[in-house]
């Protein structure tokens, strides 16, 4: 189908990238982009395709990160089991709250998801006995059946494979009857319901998928960086994720990756200028949203391709 050229191209790009990037510092930035992109792809399914605002997504990222940190170090779980546990936990929580929360619309939905994220981050900060509190805690190395990725390059391949799989799964979903139902409930909920789409159920499903992806992304982040703080679950991090999705382009998987890239690189590039990085970040958000409300990738695709960006 139409997305296979994109996915193949993306795979080739991912395979070629480490050879084109000479130094470890750049590869590190790329790895962080990849980790963020996984969460953003999930978030974009919720926001871009299903049209449901979520301002608390970092909460699920935090669940993954702390599951990997706490379950391995304090309970001796193997890292892979902890990672899976985080995904299951994030998915279960998402499933539990999805129906009451996603019944809400517009700003009420924004409020509720924001509240959920903040509650999660406050719990992580306060339960210092498990999480190390505001100072954070170290995380054991990831190891899978004796293999433990070390160094930016090995990690790159782990992250690249996860990212590609996330893009592939998301692409499949969007192109399936379920994806059609999701886009339909975004476009017109009455229409979707009138032909039998159980909108509450579909919103819940996509919310769970996004939560699971965010948790995976959080786990990868925890192992990769080797240290987590409650910052990973904070409101600001939720905002960063939303911004990546919106600036890159809603309802565009390529846009998710582009948004993650731009907004991961920018703060790093500006980090030395205290305060100015926030000014630049804020100004960029405003500019992109005023000038290209559809986001970078769909706007550029429309301008140069004439076609709609679907990949």
């Amino acid at each position, binding site marked *: 189908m139409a997305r296979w050229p994109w996915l193949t191209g993306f795979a080739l790009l991912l395979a070629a990238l480490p050879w084109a990037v000479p130094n470890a510092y750049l590869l590190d930035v790329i790895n962080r982009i990849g980790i963020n992109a996984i969460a953003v792809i999930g978030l974009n399914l919720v926001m871009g395709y299903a049209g449901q605002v979520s301002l608390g997504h970092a909460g699920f990222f935090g669940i993954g990160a702390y599951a990997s940190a706490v379950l391995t170090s304090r309970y001796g779980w193997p890292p892979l089991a902890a990672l899976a546990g985080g995904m299951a936990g994030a998915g279960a929580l998402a499933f539990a709250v999805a129906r009451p929360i996603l019944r809400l619309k517009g700003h009420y939905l924004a409020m509720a998801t924001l509240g959920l994220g903040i509650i999660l981050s406050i719990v992580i900060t306060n339960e210092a006995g498990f999480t190390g509190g505001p100072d954070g805690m170290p995380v054991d190395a990831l190891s899978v059946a004796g293999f433990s990725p070390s160094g930016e390059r090995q990690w790159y391949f782990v992250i690249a494979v996860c990212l590609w799989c996330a893009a592939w*799964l998301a692409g*499949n*979903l969007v*192109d*399936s*009857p*379920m*994806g*059609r*139902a999701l*886009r*339909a409930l*975004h*476009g*017109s909920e*009455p*229409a*979707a*319901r*009138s*032909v*039998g*789409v*159980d*909108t509450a159920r579909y919103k819940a*499903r996509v919310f769970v*998928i996004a939560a699971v992806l965010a948790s995976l992304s959080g786990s990868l982040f925890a192992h990769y960086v080797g240290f987590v703080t409650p910052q990973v679950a904070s409101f600001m991090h939720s905002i960063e994720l939303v911004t990546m999705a919106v600036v890159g382009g809603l*309802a565009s998987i390529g846009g998710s990756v582009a948004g993650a890239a731009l907004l991961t690189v920018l703060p790093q590039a500006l980090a030395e200028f205290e305060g100015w990085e926030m000014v630049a970040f804020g100004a960029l958000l405003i500019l992109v949203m005023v000038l290209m409300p559809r986001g970078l990738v769909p706007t550029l695709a429309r301008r140069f391709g004439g076609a*709609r960006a679907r990949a």
Partner: protein
Amino acid sequence: MLALEGVGMRFGGVQALAGVDWRVDAGRVHAVIGPNGAGKTTLFNVITGVYRPTQGCVLLDGQDVSGLPPDRLAARGLARTFQNLQVVGAMSAEENVMLGAHLCLSQGTLASLLHLPGLRRADRECRAEALEWLRFTGIAEYAGRLAEAMPYGALKRLEIARAMAARPRVLFLDEPAAGLNQSEKLAMRELILAIADKGITVVLVEHDMKLVMGVSEHILVLDYGRKLAEGAAAEVRANPEVIAAYLGEAEAH
């Protein structure tokens, strides 16, 4: 097949429907007429589950279905179009119609994520079927066009094609001819008759009396949420109350 018993619907201070009793028998074209604000759309909304009636109940095959959500009622064979177009602008005409077939091919999350072969096959068949409905409604030329780029008249038909793809037993059409020109109205009339020929029960809300009288065997007249009259087209047309409340007004236009 479908029966309303004392159905009432109240929005704050507005009594949009008041104690409406009505029966819809299988296999005919029924029409609901009445002046603006009479409660016709509200009647459709109550029957198709958009609102839960504040009084009375809706029976489908003898079972009380009032308060069931629209998607459950769709699964039981009710399909509809909307007075204010409800199409998904960002999807193509073809996809909009494929959406109609949702119930026939809805799949599990895992199958959707992995694109299992069964799903792909079903989706291909669904696409072919969608094309057929586009042809049936006479808008096949728009198949690949985004709905937001389609002309109004074609969108009216697109909603019908989508509803047909759901394989309904009863099809509710809310003002299908509103805003259409004379020749489009004639074509719409043919389309409605063709749908009825397929054995589907059609319930029609329409202001165009020529169209209503030309296609429907049974007419319900609403006024201020109350049933004013009901019966065969000829009877209703002769009813003095109806003439006073509605037809007279329409002819005076």
